[in-house]
Every structure is written in structure tokens, then in C-alpha cells.
């Protein structure tokens, strides 16, 4: 019944490794997002996809590559992990890209890079 789910919930890994975080929504939404929340709780948008197409790509290192195999999934792959990548990553979805669309958030993935 979970609307937006992410896996894994926790991810601890060494610097230099490559890792993926998966996100799935069962709300029938067309738009999905990835956000990064740092230790100071700032929530910053990274990417937005609408119907599997990239529509927002903030200034994010190209080590981060989102992949949307279908509109219900938006996965985040991170290459060559760095200490500064440690954060909580949230996936979200909304009905569309309309400004009044509410975003529904997943529970977050806490990434710790050692």
C-alpha cells in the first residue's frame, strides 16, 4: 500500500564505490523527483522526470545518473562515491508538472560514505 517506496532505507559504503537507490510509486503519477537532504536539513532538488523524460537537472555532478525505465520508477545511480555524498536522498512523485500538484515523498535513503 506504500505510495512511494525507496530501497534501501540505509546504505553504508566506502568512498569510490558505485551504488544505486531505487524508487517506485504506485500512485499513477507522471512526474518523479530526486531530492538530497544534507545534514543541515536543506532539501535540494536534483532531478525531475515527467513520463520518463528528464525535465529538471540541477547542478549535480555527472557521477549521479537517474534512470527511469517506466513512469512508475526512477532510480538513482551514483558512481565513484565521495564523502560529501553522505546525505538522505528522497524520491517524490506528483500527478504532473502543474504548479498546484502536491508532491508525495518516499521515506528516504540514508547514504553514508566512509
Amino acid at each position, binding site marked *: 500500500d506504500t505510495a512511494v517506496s525507496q530501497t534501501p532505507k540505509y546504505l553504508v559504503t566506502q568512498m569510490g564505490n558505485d551504488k544505486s537507490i531505487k524508487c517506485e510509486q504506485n500512485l499513477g503519477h507522471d512526474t518523479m523527483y530526486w531530492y538530497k537532504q544534507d545534514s543541515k536539513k536543506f*532539501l*535540494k*532538488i536534483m532531478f525531475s522526470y515527467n513520463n520518463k523524460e528528464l525535465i529538471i537537472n540541477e547542478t549535480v555532478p555527472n557521477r549521479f545518473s537517474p534512470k527511469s525505465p517506466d513512469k512508475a520508477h526512477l532510480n538513482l545511480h551514483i558512481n565513484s562515491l565521495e564523502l560529501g555524498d553522505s546525505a538522505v536522498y528522497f524520491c517524490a512523485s506528483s500527478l504532473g508538472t502543474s*504548479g*498546484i500538484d*502536491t*508532491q508525495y515523498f518516499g521515506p528516504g535513503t540514508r547514504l553514508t560514505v566512509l
Partner: protein
Amino acid sequence: SQQGEEDPQALSIQEGENATMNCSYKTSINNLQWYRQNSGRGLVHLILIRSNEREKHSGRLRVTLDTSKKSSSLLITASRAADTASYFCATRNNDMRFGAGTRLTVKP
């Protein structure tokens, strides 16, 4: 860059009291939304106020918007311990921009 900035950063009150949180932003917006985040959880949408609205109510929540001052406030009346959470404002123009949140603690 961040858009909304919440004030105060942290607020501690007793159960039953009212809690007021403020949000300031920098550019023009289509709407402003407030979200709540419980510790270790994702954000949950609370209320949306459009740029042509000045006040909106939802249960114990009251939101105001002053576009001339580029500011909004969230009032939670008759607070409960379960209201303890971080509250974020998010402004919407082309995309959604969040502030760093106000950490609200309601003591029983």
C-alpha cells in the same frame, strides 16, 4: 539555490499553545506549500496557498501569504505532542524550492 527560508530554526512550546512559523522567499511564485517531516521520515504535504490567496485554513492549520513582503506564516493552533516535527515551506515557480525547515517540539 534555496528559495524559502524558515524562521525560527527551532521552536519549543507546551502542548495546547499555538505555534507560528515564518517563511521568506526571494522570487515570484505561483504558490507556496507547507510540508511536515517527522524524524527519519519523508515529507508530508500539509497545505497549499496560491499566489492570489492571502489566507487559508485546514483544521488546526492557518497559512497566510503576503506576496508584497514575500513571506508566509504557518500557525498551528492548540498544539499537540504529535505535532512535533520539522516544518518546511516550499515555493513553486518552475520547480519546487524548499527551505531548511523549522524544528518544532511540543512538550506534553
